[in-house]
């Protein structure tokens, strides 16, 4: 309980006696103005709540003796529950598919074509894997006397969305978001045991999310997956976002159960944020910290000066007010650059667990903010109008094209002042001043994709267009 008397919000679990009507989750975000609908939906509320709940669990804990307990990777202090160990088994089996489908050794452009096969094997095997590693009563939960399918269809959709695009041979934060939703779905179905003070949440982050991120890195390296939506050097990271959130929490000041989530300061003995440019520090810290493990991966795959290929992370490393400040900024940025970005969230499907229904507590965002960010017939910059005059960080994010299926629009002048909902112990639904984050994450570093229409505008002459183009939608 907090000092202000309000309880820390956690993702509510469904009543197993009265489950909702599960449905195969479907696409709801078709145009960019649908993003503003998403931001007042129950699904958004649930995802943000779950994220903040996991985030808070990674802050070190103050102990009664005046010392503190931090939560490094592979910490002995974190016990993994049976469901967490089962999910580790699931990840292991997903990883095993890599040995079954070695990367193609033939000529290639960048992304390895064998990843398509890897993805297909996973898709074919998904139901079997879920049945092996998730409890039957959870998968088979369904509302009585209904013809609706069981919860499995919803879990499977988020599970399969977590592994990059077999078609585009890329991976980005949209896929990472899907895995977060997969875990949130299990949570809502009661698949994780009750616990106090973030015990189970910590096990989820360290026992499931961290190995997931490692597995994804293996996939990226093995099949040379492209960033889904790279801003080149001007994004936070080519592929991921969550490790920067949880990793900065690991290094933030220790808290009591009742404390507000810190907004600045660092844990005594934490590495300096500036250490990200020191390879020896990164090598040491990546073994125990999620933020540094992500930085370490950048070192693994990129050659060149850090400040040049990762200028945003470089600038963040200059923050003097501690990891708490970085953590707060990362959550804000995730909200703006991942959850509010059409190209990223457009692929997130909605069902009964993550519902498209409006959250009754949600405050309607400023209407104009997102209304301009949809697929438009033409969205060229006004001749003499600058898109924005603020420094706009942008994460790579999308799993898709710039104007394909979306737009590319001028970022609004709105400042990213999203409320740090849950971590401030308030409903995470107030999205009132969300920035326009409609900047389209561009295509992967290989081909740039057009920010225009999702569907082909015209048929090529010759008539045999669609059937002859293997990758065309």
């Amino acid at each position, binding site marked *: 309980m907090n000092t202000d008397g309000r309880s820390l919000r956690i993702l509510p679990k469904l009543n197993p006696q009265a489950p909702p009507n599960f449905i195969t989750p479907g696409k709801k975000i078709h145009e960019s103005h649908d993003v503003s609908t998403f931001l007042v939906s129950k699904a958004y509320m649930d995802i943000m709540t779950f994220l903040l709940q996991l985030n808070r669990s990674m802050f070190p804990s103050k102990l009664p003796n005046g010392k503190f307990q931090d939560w490094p990777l592979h910490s002995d202090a974190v016990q993994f529950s049976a469901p967490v160990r089962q999910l580790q088994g699931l990840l292991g089996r997903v990883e095993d598919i890599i040995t079954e489908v070695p990367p193609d050794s033939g000529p*290639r*452009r960048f992304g390895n074509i064998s990843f398509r096969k890897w993805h297909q094997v996973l898709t074919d095997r998904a139901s079997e894997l879920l049945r092996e590693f998730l409890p039957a009563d959870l998968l088979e939960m369904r509302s009585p006397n209904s013809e609706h399918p069981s919860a499995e269809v919803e879990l499977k959709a988020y599970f399969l969305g977590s592994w990059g695009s077999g078609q*585009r041979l890329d991976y980005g934060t949209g896929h990472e978001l899907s895995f977060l939703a997969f875990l949130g779905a299990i949570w809502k179905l009661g698949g994780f045991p009750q616990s106090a003070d973030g015990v189970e949440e910590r096990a989820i982050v360290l026992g499931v999310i961290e190995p997931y991120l490692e597995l994804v890195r293996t996939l990226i390296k093995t099949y040379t997956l492209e*960033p889904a939506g*790279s801003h*080149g*050097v*001007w994004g936070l990271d*080519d592929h991921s976002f969550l490790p920067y959130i949880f990793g900065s929490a690991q290094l933030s000041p220790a808290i009591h159960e009742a404390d507000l989530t810190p907004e600045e300061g660092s844990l005594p003995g934490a590495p300096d944020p500036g250490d990200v440019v020191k390879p020896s520090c990164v090598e040491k810290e990546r073994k125990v910290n999620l933020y540094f493990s992500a930085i370490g991966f950048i070192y693994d795959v990129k*050659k*060149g*000066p850090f*400040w*040049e*290929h990762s*200028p*945003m992370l470089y*600038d*963040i490393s200059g*923050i003097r007010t501690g990891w708490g*400040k970085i953590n707060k900024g990362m959550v*804000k*940025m995730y909200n*703006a650059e991942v959850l509010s970005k059409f190209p990223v969230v457009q692929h997130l499907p909605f069902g009964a667990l993550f519902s498209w229904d409006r959250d009754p507590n949600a405050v309607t965002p400023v209407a104009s903010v997102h209304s301009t960010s949809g697929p438009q017939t*033409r*969205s*060229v*910059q006004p001749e003499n109008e*600058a*898109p924005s005059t*603020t*420094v*706009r960080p*942008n994460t790579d994010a999308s799993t898709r094209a*710039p*104007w394909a299926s979306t737009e*590319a*629009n*001028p970022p609004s002048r709105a*400042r*990213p002042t999203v409320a740090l909902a849950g971590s401030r112990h308030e409903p995470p639904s107030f999205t009132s001043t969300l920035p326009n984050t409609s900047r389209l994450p561009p*295509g992967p*570093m*290989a*081909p*740039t*994709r*057009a*920010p*225009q229409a999702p569907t082909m*505008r015209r048929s*090529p002459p*010759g008539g045999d*267009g*669609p059937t*002859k*183009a*293997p990758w*065309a*939608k």
Partner: protein
Amino acid sequence: MSDLDRAIEQLRACRLIPESQVRELCYKARELLIEEGNVVSVDAPVTICGDIHGQFHDLMELFRVGGDVPDTNYLFMGDFVDRGFYSLESFLLLLCLKVRYPDRITLIRGNHESRQITTVYGFYDECIRKYGSANVWRYCCEVFDYLALGAIVLGASSELEPTGPPIVNETQSSMPLDDDELETEVLNSRGEVTMSTYRPRNRSSSDSSDTSRNISPPRDISAAPGQTAGAPLRAGAPGTGASSDGNGSATTTRTGAVLCVHGGLSPLIDSVDKIRLIDRKQEVPHEGAMCDLLWSDPDEIEGWGLSPRGAGFLFGGDIVKQFNHLNGLSLVARAHQLVMEGYKEMFDGGIVTVWSAPNYCYRCGNVAAILELGEDTSNGGTIARSNGEYGRSNGVLGSNAATTVVSPGRRYRVFEAAAQDTRGMPAKKPVADYFL
């Protein structure tokens, strides 16, 4: 030393010039570019370059490997900006060189030279970060609108002057016979030959060998081989419409012109002349001929296909063959797609992708390449030119005349990313609003 020379010196050192100077530069560049046609005619010798994407230090490496401006004649096929850290330095330097040596450097437009794309892929962010406002971004975008859409290289030699013996006798290098001519050569950044291919000299169209290409469309069954020997053939410079049989003799081979364009072909464009009709001085549209030229990709398909990029099309080898044939071209040079080896010839050499950003995005591990086309001096170095008259000879040729066009000798210089040790660490900039 003029202001322009000073700006060039400063940019070569990777230091930006003041905003007022950028404004002036962009104004001058526009004055210059507005006079250029949609398809610029360029005489060989010329060095053709692909995507740069703000990789300034690698651009310097490119100049080291390929020779400096104005000593070497350059043609850059667009995508100067976005993704890399130094889009501004790279583009402004190229623009300065264009203004200073307008006849020695040609810049054509890539799909990233657009307002919409640069606000998404990084160049806009870079301008804000480095200049504190969008003014410079706006000046640059105004220049983008005036960049040519393509270029035609004329007067390229079919034969390369050998650089020297290969350093390695790789199996893919064919061994020359006595009278073979050197067709392609690949050099590393130290100028050593790593591969070369030859073709027989003095062959006629009737004894086409494996290494020559008959560019008539595959479906053109009316052009029976026996008929081609005596058919009238153009001897004027290819791609110019100068079609008279200038030598008075039945020349059976000639070096075709090379069309350079950022992306590729368009179903709406069947002749180079049609490119000339586009009103190009605008933001890149989302569809149509201008869009396609900047967005399309060749692919192993027949005919046209939908592009996964959501703009432009995929086009197959038959499309390229037909287009080259109808336009008297021997080669389409384009950029737009990362290729690990720096260059990639497709469709019997009818099209080549040239990629000039090594270790793209700091991680792709690819090498980069530039393509040198030599000057054909056999004709005394004169080149018949006739802008806008292109393709007029089609009626003369008739449908049963198959023209055997010899492709130009192609020297690829392959290079790797510039060494990094000379770059110091800059001061950290203020962080994004999220972290304030």
